[in-house]
């Protein structure tokens, strides 16, 4: 097998994002949630309007509706902002559009890696992977990976942690 050309650049590690199914779940969830709240508020406002003739009872419903539409529309962007990146010695997690947060967890610090799947996740065929270190602040998790990718990531993380175990 010929040696690779010396000029070949090392593979650039790339951010891995979540599955499109996750975006759909989130859009569905926020549309449903905001829709429900809006419906309740609109009904209440309409009752107020019909009983007292005061139209401003509709304002809260309107406000929530606008917020919900904006939130639902930006949901795909928020979902795309989530990702992880495996590096040589640690894993990076990033999330957030307005409040951005990136956390680096060295593999040796990993106490536990778990795959979690709720009922909606199961329907959509996705799962979330979360890492536990000795610190409560680490809070490293990535939602919405395809189920088999989540399992692979967990196994790989545990394997990496095993090879670099360093106690506390």
């Amino acid at each position, binding site marked *: 097998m010929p040696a690779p050309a010396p000029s070949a650049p090392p593979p650039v590690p790339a951010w891995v994002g979540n599955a499109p199914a996750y975006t759909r779940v989130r859009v569905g969830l926020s549309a449903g949630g905001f829709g429900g709240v809006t419906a309740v508020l609109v009904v209440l406002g309409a009752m107020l309007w019909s009983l007292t003739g005061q139209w401003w009872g509709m304002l809260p419903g309107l406000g929530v509706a606008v917020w919900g539409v904006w939130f639902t529309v930006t949901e795909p962007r928020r979902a795309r902002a989530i990702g992880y990146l495996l590096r040589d*010695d*640690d894993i990076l997690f990033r999330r957030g559009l*307005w*409040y*951005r*947060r*990136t*956390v*680096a*967890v*060295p593999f*040796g*610090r990993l*106490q536990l890696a778990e795959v979690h799947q709720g009922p909606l996740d199961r329907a959509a065929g996705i799962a979330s992977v979360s890492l536990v*270190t*000795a*610190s*409560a*602040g*680490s809070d*490293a998790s990535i939602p919405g990976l395809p189920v088999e990718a989540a399992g692979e990531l967990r196994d790989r993380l545990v394997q990496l942690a095993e090879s*670099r*175990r*360093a*106690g*506390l």
Partner: protein
Amino acid sequence: MTAPPADGRGAPGPDLDAWHRLHPATPLLRGGLGLVVVLGIVWSNFRDDFVNTMTGANRASDQPDTVAQLRWLFAGPYALAVIAGLAVLILGLLGLLWLSWRMSAYRYTDQMVELRRGVVFRSHRSTRLDRVQRVDIDRPLLARILGLSRVRIGTAHSSGGLDIAYLSRDRALQVRDDLLRLVRAAQTAEAVPAYLVGPGGARARAGAGRAESAGRVRIGAGAGAGGVAGRPDAVVSAGSPAGGAPAGEAAVETSLLRQPNWRVAAGMLCSVTGVVLAGLIVLLVVGIIARRPILVASAATLLAVGYSRVQVFLARGNLRVSVIRSTAGAHGVPAVGARSSVSAVLSASDALHLRHGVLSLQSRTLPAGRIHAIEVVQPLLWRPFGWWRLRMNVAGASAAESGSAGATAELVSVGTAAQCVEVLRLLHPGMSALADPADNAGRGYTASPRRALLLFVASPWRHGYRVVEPGPTSELGTPAGEDGPDGPSAAWAGPVLALRRGMIWRSLALIPAARAQSISCQQGPVSRRLGLATISVHTVPGSARTNLRGLAAEDAQRAFAAWPRLVVRAMSRGQGGE
């Protein structure tokens, strides 16, 4: 289960594998006390009625309804049945208490410590000794009155340990010493910390003079074969893990500092809550004079605030800190001289010993390696007096202890600058110079930019971070004999992250890179507009604040790029596994 000796008093040496019972008074303390109190109340209220019933006398019936009803119960036609029922109830309860004592037992092997408890809800907990982070003794007030102690065994996870409660005082000391030795034996692959032997261990051995002690512990083989700087090379020959007295090994305990109670009280008064308390007292006086409802409200608040303060004071009072040092030098030759001096740096085999409490007593053995972060803070009103507080994040502390309100999350609650510096110097000789917390100079700190002042209106300037690299080039200097047993505890010998903040409320947090769990970088919308970011170093929970806001975004990015590598490097140098 063979009948174990109650409380195992006087049993020489650790009885491996045998189940031991707790002290017979245990169930009484664990809830039976409530029964005693209830009985006492009943007795004191209806003493007359009891006496009357017994003597057959029947006096005035101008009692309130409830009393009359009770009298009817005890003196009426069903008196016998009622009294018999009560007797059965009490006997049953006592029987349950006795049964719960009979069913509770603990034991330790060279692998794990186990505790089983419960009659109805049975529980059986076991903790592996190689996971144990701490073995401490405390004596809550009621237990103290009865002369009992509790042995607390903690692991890294806050709920992973177990408490052996309660034991007689001597038995608790013995159990702790035995456990510490077993833990040491179970963890020899890591290091052989002599703090685990402890002065208690030395004491126990001196008396027993056990012949079976085959273990020989050699601490600190220098920078020999693969010996990483600052990491003692532990060589333990196979022997009875529980056998005590390895030759040439002993521990010396020297007093480091005492914290006078008046200073703790004064420090509390010179704080925000102190000011609130003073304000409430003024309100109370005004209320009394003006006879207004303000009186009741302020009195109630005063009680609530004052009560919590008094509790903290009772927990933190009588603080004594001492240093337990292994006297074993290289090749097992006792090297007491320089090493026993109080100010020498703690090696991985040394530990701090904290004892505190006014009513309930706590005794904690704290090796330097278990301190994952330390913060020096000065509340504004303490400045005229030059007092400082040392907060810390410690592995293996229970959730209640490590909370910011937990008094035990403080190493020194109100200390002089000299005392705090002395403690820092124990971790690393350079820390004291670096940490001169009153120092406002640059000192190599990457400061937060001027535009961050918006975030720090209350306490501007002096925010910044720096990485303190050990080595000859650093201003820390190389500690004497860093590669020997005299070197600082491994974690603190590596790079240390220093986060400094505030000019009005001054604070400095020190985190050894080898102990950081993860690093994160955050940015909110306002910060982004200003080009600022926050960097957080995550450690085990505790009261030290390990994040820094208001850094220039590019500085935060640089730190976020460099620090994880620093952590990995420190870990791979073997400094992460104590």
